[in-house]
């Protein structure tokens, strides 16, 4: 099996608070991988470390056998929906087109080829008829589809998705899954930060159980065991969300 992403001894700390501790993770090429763990387990941070958005305190990350910085265009990122300002003046098509900005490069504008890419991507997620709609008028599921379309337009080899199924309606979940499976058929690698444990076995081939440390990493059949889950969630399946109530 060849690895799309190899993470060795990765440690990430925000102001000396370790968020990821000595994590070793491998993610196989051409498969769908879920990253699972409680809140604050460092799932999003793991993605951001792979993307070079956060700087690790120690460790090595290789994407397709090479450092990420050399091939940022081969990795597409779908951030959490809630992190974006949906009142930004842009249409669905504009957002999809942003996926091509990487390949267009500095000083140039997207041309007909890029427009075609964005259109195809929107078609793939079933948003063609909404292409001219302002993003401010989209439902949560539609927002998620646009973000996926943007990633598709990037024509990457690896897709990193941060909680794409969070708070979307059932049809959208089905569409998203369908698109992800289609990507997989194309030989792409898909990595999803996932919160719904009940669907892990159904949707994914490979799973990474994470809670600051890597608890387990492997094919779903082997790694996604009750024992590992208990170790990941510390005996409880729900961790309390500690509010930051200090002034």
């Amino acid at each position, binding site marked *: 099996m060849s690895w799309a992403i190899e993470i060795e001894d990765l440690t990430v700390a925000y102001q000396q608070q*370790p968020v990821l501790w000595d994590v070793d993770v491998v993610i196989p090429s051409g498969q769908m991988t879920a990253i699972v763990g409680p809140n*604050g387990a460092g799932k999003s941070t793991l993605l951001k470390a792979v993307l070079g958005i956060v700087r690790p305190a120690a460790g090595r990350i290789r994407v397709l056998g090479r450092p990420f910085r050399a091939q940022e265009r081969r990795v597409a990122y779908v951030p959490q929906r809630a992190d974006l300002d949906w009142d930004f003046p842009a249409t669905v098509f504009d957002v999809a087109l942003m996926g091509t900005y990487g390949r267009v490069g500095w000083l140039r504008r997207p041309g007909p080829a890029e427009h075609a890419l964005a259109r195809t991507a929107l078609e793939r997620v079933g948003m063609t008829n909404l292409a001219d709609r302002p993003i401010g008028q989209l439902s949560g599921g539609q927002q998620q589809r646009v973000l996926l379309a943007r990633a598709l337009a990037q024509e990457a080899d690896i897709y990193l998705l941060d909680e794409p199924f969070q708070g979307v309606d059932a049809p959208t979940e089905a569409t998203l899954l369908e698109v992800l499976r289609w990507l997989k058929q194309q030989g792409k690698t898909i990595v999803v930060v996932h919160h719904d444990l009940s669907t892990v076995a159904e949707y994914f081939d490979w799973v990474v159980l994470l*809670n600051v440390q890597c608890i387990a990493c492997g094919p779903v059949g082997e790694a996604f065991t009750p024992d590992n889950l208990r170790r990941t969630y*510390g005996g409880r399946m729900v961790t309390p969300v500690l509010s930051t109530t200090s*002034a």
Partner: protein
Amino acid sequence: MSPALEILLVAVLTAAACALPGAFLVLRRMSLVSDAISHAVLPGIVIGFLLTENLQHPLLLVLAGASGLLTVYLIELLEKTGRLREDAAIGLVFPALFSVGVLLIAQLADQVHLDTDAVLLGELAFVPFDRLQWQGIDLGPRALWTMAGLLLMNVLLLWLLYKELTLATFDAAAAAVLGFRPILLHYLLMGLVAVTVVAAFHAVGAILVIALMIGPPATALLLARRMPTYLLLSLLIGALSALPGYGMARVLDVSIAGSMATMVGVLFGLVWLLAPETGLLARWRRHRRQQLDFALDLLLLHLLHHEHQPAATVERHQDTLPAHLNWTSERLNIILAEGQRRGWLQRKGPEVHLTPAGRARATQLVETLAPARSP
């Protein structure tokens, strides 16, 4: 009382009076409302002057306060449409009101010395010369009394509404459920801000009022973890920035209010840099100190982790360690030396091994880390 002492006292009282509502403004992310109010009172003052033809008339202050409240109301109104964000709402309302004021002056009172500066800016330096007298007895500067009254009012109101305001600030929904009427509380607080701004800038000038409303609470936020400490520190820091501010004004013979406002910034800068635990310097030093501990723990964990894996001999080899941990070999050597000194590591030829003590520590680390860790 010497005039210097009187000025200082007024400054300290003003700082304390401003810090209290300011602390809530800062928490509610509405700091710039203070600036908005300080400009938007102009039409109130101008209309007051046109009605009374007297710049000293108390009606001016009343109308100024009213325009302050109007500002807050209009900002709220615009925001509620959902079409404008808070920054845009603030940035539209107060320049519009200010423009109305300027136009009124230009149209009706141009020849009068109703300069925006003269009206808006009280001057701290003149505080000792505007005194209150009662039956021939000198009762001290007028501003001393107004500021003391203002402080008293603010302390009293905030003491009465402390828990409601605190709750409404952190969780308006919860406050509403508990029947605290967050809207009412909001307007009460804003009314307090408006009155404080108007009364205080009449005594010390607009810019110092804004500095004192935002600066000390922001500084306190760097130090405090709990609400009461935060409020208390805001008060204290506000009062304290007055002292070096006055000192600087004296040494350099410059504007007192300007120099106090500058000192608010300097004090903030000092705390930002030097605060224990959260200060930049402390963080940097801790970072340096902990880096070693941290790296050592990391190495222990790494070794423990790979101890029983087939690749263990590779993982613990001193030539592969730097590459795997992304460390230089010099750094590795420093950390190895420290690990050996603490008796956690031992070298076997080119391999690095955990001692029993080291293994115990690593195991303990693993246990304390994973499940218990919360954000």
